Structures are given as C-alpha cells and as structure tokens.
C-alpha cells in the first residue's frame, strides 16, 4: 500500500487551467501567423483594385491598409479570447470592428475610387488607359467583358448541367445494378482521375481539330465534362450507396415505376451530393484556364480567365489597378457560390464519400 499523500486539488486545477489557456494562445497565434499569407494577397488584390491609379506605382496605401488589418485581426482574436459571455463577445467584436472601420476610412478611405473598373463599361479601356500616359498604339482589341463573362457562365453552366445529369444516372446504375465489368469500371474511374489531364492536351487539340470543334465553346465543354465526370460519378456513387434499398422497394410496391421511384424518392436523398458536385464542377469550369487557352482562339470566344490573361498581358505595366479590378470581378461569382454552398460541401467530405 502506498502512503496516502495530501493532494492539493486547487493547485492541480489551476495548473490544468493555465496549461489549457496557454495551449489555446499558442494555437491561435500559430493559426493567425499561417493564415496571414493567405488572407493578405486577397486583401491587397481588393485594396489595389479600389485604390491604384494609372501609371502610379505607389505602395504606401497597402502598408497603411495593413496597419489597419493586422491589428484588427489580433484585436478580434483577443476580444474573442477574453470575453466571458456571449454578450461581451458581441460587444467586443462590434467595438473592434467599429474602430477598424473608422481607422480604415481615415487612412485608406481618401484613396478609394471605382475608376479601375472602367472595363465594365468601356470595351476599349486599354486604349483609354494607355492614352492617360500618352501611349495609344498597340492596344489589344478586347471584347466586351460581359461577353467573356457570359462565355464563362455558359461553359461552367453547361458543364455543370451535363456532369450532374450524367454522373447521377451513371452513379445510380453503378450503385444499384450488378453487371459484368462493374468493379473494373469502378476501379478505372479512380485511375482515370489519377492521370494529369495536361498530358492529353496535344491529342485533345488534334481530336478537336479533326471533328471541327476547335475554337468552339462546345468543344471545350465536351473536354471539361469528360475530365470531370469520373470523380463526380465516384462521389455520387457514395451518396447513392447510402440510400437504403428499403425506401426504393417501398416506392415500387407503392405503385411507382423504377424511374418514378428514382426521381421522387431516391434523388431527394442525394440532394446534398448533387449540390456538392454541381458547385465543384461549376467552379472548375469557371476557373478553367489551360484548356480554354489552348482550344479557344477568337476573342469572341474568350472566357473570363482568357480575358484576365490578356488584360494582364496588355496593361499590367501601365495600370495594375485595372488588372486587379478584373481579378476582383472574376473572383466574385466563385466567392458567392462557395459561401452559398459551403454547408453542402462540408457534408460531402464528411458524409458522402464511402468507396
């Protein structure tokens, strides 16, 4: 028997509390430190888009904005860490946000303007921008930005529609029916995804040329669909596998045909999966660069990524504010989509994928 020693429970509790607090402090400090390099470029992009002026390479405004942002992030974290109640938390956060807003208005506010978004209403903005520094010749003929925007929406939208339709039907069949070659097909779905698609760019170019779809939006859509499908099918199969057989059989005995059972009973169960692959496919199509760059030539076929590329190519040295503004414009739709669908995307990585 070990001799009983008196235990100082209070001291132990204090020690545990201090250890917990200090671990949290270190963890948050680390997270803030690593997230700054990710947040800053976006923050700068937005700041430059709204503040830079033609022909002026001035970084002072960036440093002033950082002087606002970094203390704000730290202060928000401190407010969150020190608050004892929900009410204090909200008050703390509001106070920090208010001070930050005032500081931002004072330090950065005077430099803000919308002039860099000239491309939205002036198709020949390149000439306008160049003329400000007296260099008119040699500007690229840009199409209307809304045209490129429409092309991007068309490519991403059509790709999404096709991928969602085909992937749900194929995945349902793979999940529910037994047929020769089923398991090798499932294996090949994954293997297909493992190849770097860029390696196929030359054969793809030749194929599109021969079937006459080079420099057409439909050609690009077909290629993108083909590359996106395997993974989408695989994801959807996981979702279908999770739908119990019973409810489908129940629907059949309740008088539904196989197709009616699929549409009215099975599909609603995999809604989250469909939303997830739809968002991912749309964003893939939206940000697509290499294939559109290779397969689309005429400027009436430009997508937003090509527009962005040519803007950078043409006016970067003259006006990086316009380049940033195009970047912001290009970024907004994916941002809205991601924020709206975040909930479903989370479920995909947690619940949906099951071999």
């Amino acid at each position, binding site marked *: 028997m070990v001799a009983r020693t008196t235990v100082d429970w209070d001291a132990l509790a204090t020690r545990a509390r201090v250890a917990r607090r200090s671990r949290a402090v270190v963890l948050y400090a680390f997270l803030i430190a690593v997230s700054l390099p990710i947040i800053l470029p976006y923050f700068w992009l937005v700041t430059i888009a709204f503040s830079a002026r033609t022909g002026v390479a001035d970084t002072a405004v960036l440093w002033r904005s950082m002087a606002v942002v970094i203390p704000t992030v730290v202060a928000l974290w401190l407010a969150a860490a020190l608050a004892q109640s929900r009410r204090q938390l909200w008050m703390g956060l509001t106070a920090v946000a208010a001070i930050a807003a005032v500081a931002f208005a004072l330090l950065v506010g005077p430099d803000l303007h919308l002039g860099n978004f000239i491309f939205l209403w002036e198709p020949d903005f390149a000439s306008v921008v160049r003329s400000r520094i007296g260099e008119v010749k040699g500007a690229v003929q840009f199409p209307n930005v809304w045209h490129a925007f429409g092309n991007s929406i068309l490519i991403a939208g059509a790709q999404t529609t096709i991928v969602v339709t085909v992937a749900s039907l194929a995945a349902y069949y793979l999940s529910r029916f037994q047929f020769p070659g089923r398991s090798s097909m499932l294996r090949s779905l994954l293997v297909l995804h493992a190849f770097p698609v860029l390696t196929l760019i030359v054969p793809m170019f030749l194929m599109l040329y021969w079937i006459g779809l080079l420099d057409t939006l439909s050609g690009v859509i077909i290629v993108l669909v083909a590359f996106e499908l395997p993974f989408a099918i695989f994801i959807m199969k996981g979702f279908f596998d999770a739908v*119990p057989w*019973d*409810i489908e*059989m*129940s*629907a*059949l*005995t*309740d*008088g*539904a*045909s196989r197709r*009616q059972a699929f549409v*009215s*009973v099975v599909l*609603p*169960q995999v*809604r989250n999966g469909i939303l997830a692959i739809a968002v991912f496919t749309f964003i893939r199509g939206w940000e697509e660069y290499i294939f559109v760059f290779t397969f689309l030539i005429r400027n009436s076929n430009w997508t937003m990524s090509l527009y962005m590329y040519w803007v950078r190519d043409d006016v970067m040295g003259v006006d990086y504010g316009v380049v940033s503004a195009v970047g912001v414009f290009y970024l907004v739709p994916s941002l809205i989509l991601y924020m709206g669908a975040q909930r479903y995307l989370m479920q995909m990585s947690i619940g949906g994928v099951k071999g």
Partner: protein
Amino acid sequence: MAKIEFRNVVKRFGAVEVIPDMNLVIEDGEFVALLGPSGCGKSTSLFMLAGIYLPSGGELLFDGHVVNEVEARDRNVGIVFQSYALYPHMSVRDNILFPLRFKKTPRDEALTRVKAAANLVRVEELLDRRPSELSGGQQQRVALARALVKEPQLLLLDEPLSNLDASLRLSMRTEIKSLHAQLGVTTVLVTHDQIEATTMADRIICMRAGQIEQVGTPDDLYLKPSSLFVAGFIGSPPINLVAGKAEGGTITVDGVRFPVEGASGSVTVGLRPEHLRFGNTGFAGRIAQIEPMGREILYVVETGMGALRVLEQGSSAGHSTGEEVRIGFQPENSLVFETAQQKLVAGAHVRAPI
C-alpha cells in the same frame, strides 16, 4: 382481398438456390406468419409476393391468376418494412399520400383516405411532421397507414416489431391483430420471433433453408411439431431434447430408462420445460442454477442425461441450488422423434421412469 398460392415456386440468386420448391396456399383474409431463422428464405418469399423479386420457376397466383410477371406497382400489395422505409424528405401526410399519387386518385378523395388511414392507426396529429421527428412506434404506425391507404389486397409485414422496445412490441402486436380483424385483409407476417408468430397469426409456416418444415396453427406447432427443428424453434424456454436408443419398449438415454410405446431404433425424446414437474417419482437430478423469470422460475437441472430445463409456475423458488430432485411428467406431453429422419413418431410417448 386475395387468395395466394405458391405452386412449385423456385428462387435462385445466381447459382444459389434459396427456395428449391415451395408449395403453399394462403386463404383469403387469413393472417399467416412465415417463421424461421435468418436466411431461411422467408423474406425472399415475401419479396416475391411483393413483386420485387421474380420467381425463377413455378407459379405464383393471386386469386387463381398467375402473377409471376406482374410488376410490383400493379400488384396492389401493401408492405411494412423492418426499417419502416418512410420517405425521409416527405411529411407524414405526403408519405401516406404517396401510394395514391400513382393511382390518379382525385386530391380531395385522396386526402380523405389519408385522414381515414391515419385515424385507423392513430397518427392523425402527426400528419405535418417529418419521419425523423417521430418515435419508432409512431414511424411504425405511419408505415402501416401508408401500406393500408391503398386498400391492398395483400398486406406484407417484414419483421415489423423487431425495432420496437418490449412494451411497445406488445401493444403493436395487439393493434396489428385487431386491425386485421377489422379490415380482413390477407396478411403475411415474416418473423424470426416465434412469440410474434404464435400470438398474431392464424397459421404459421415454419421454414428452414428454403423448405417449409410445417404448416399449422400455433397449437399444432407447439403440441405436434412434425420435426426436431420445429420442436426446437417453437417454445420458450426451448424444449429439452435427449437422444437415445429404443429397444423392447424402453428408451435408454445415458443410463436413464424410459418406458416407451410405438417407437424403436435411434430416437430423440422431447420434453418441454413447462411439462416437467418436480415430485417424488421420475428421474433424478440436482439443481444447478435458478433463473427467476417473474411469473415462472426456470431451473437448470443436472441429470444423468445432461442439463435439462424445468419451468415451474409461481414467483418464488420452492427449491434451492444443489438440491437433489426427481423429475416426472405426463406421458401425453412427451414427444418422440426419429433421430435419423428428425421426424416426429406419431402417437409415440414415453413415460417417466419410476
């Protein structure tokens, strides 16, 4: 309402023959139970009735018409699954309404029928809820309402009570039975629980490995089990089975000699725990264990033939562990089976040794 008939029905899954040859008639309005251990083919038979599986051979008849190839949706069969299989994305009302959607029932009439079905199983207050907001018992009722709303000619229940807790199971048992009495719909219950089968069904079809072992009323199966399998499957606590040899009017089991009438050769004697009595005569044993079960007490008694179970009425144990006892029984309660064929020897009984 329909009369159901299996004529030489065969079901194979690939090379596996689940049901080799099934012959069975279920009368119009009857309540039968398909009883057997898991994997005996009872659910397969049920899904063939529903039209989800197609028979690989033979004929399946509804009211004298072959329905082998009639699709599930045209059979007008209501089914309650073990998991209830409610549609999670629909309200209770839409769940019950679902079967009527495909019958092109006018909306007003459909809603009236949904109300009536919900009233029947007492879920009328839950119509606007989602299945996930219901308890197990409530989901069960909704599933019943959904199966009944289309006025099926055949109601199939696949282990309907196995996901309910004990007290709910008891009340649902009563309710399903009274629903059947009220509606008179031909009902097939699939279960592995003999109590469910014996309490609810008019007739029990006891199955084993795809074969029908015995068809009969609950009493038939209990009193005159046609085989060792049925004897062992029906009755709780299970029957005592001891194997011995019958020669010249005596069965010898590990040295214990039972006088016997009408049997010879290798036989197995079946004695139900509730038929065994402690007394001054009979074979000797020593109580090894006592298991109080409320109204009854189960004794495990070590005898020359191994451990036997003896069930005694009453709530307090009249005997204690280690006590030496003698066990007797009424000859008409004993069962004798041929060990090799595993079949009941009709009319054969043993008497307790003096």
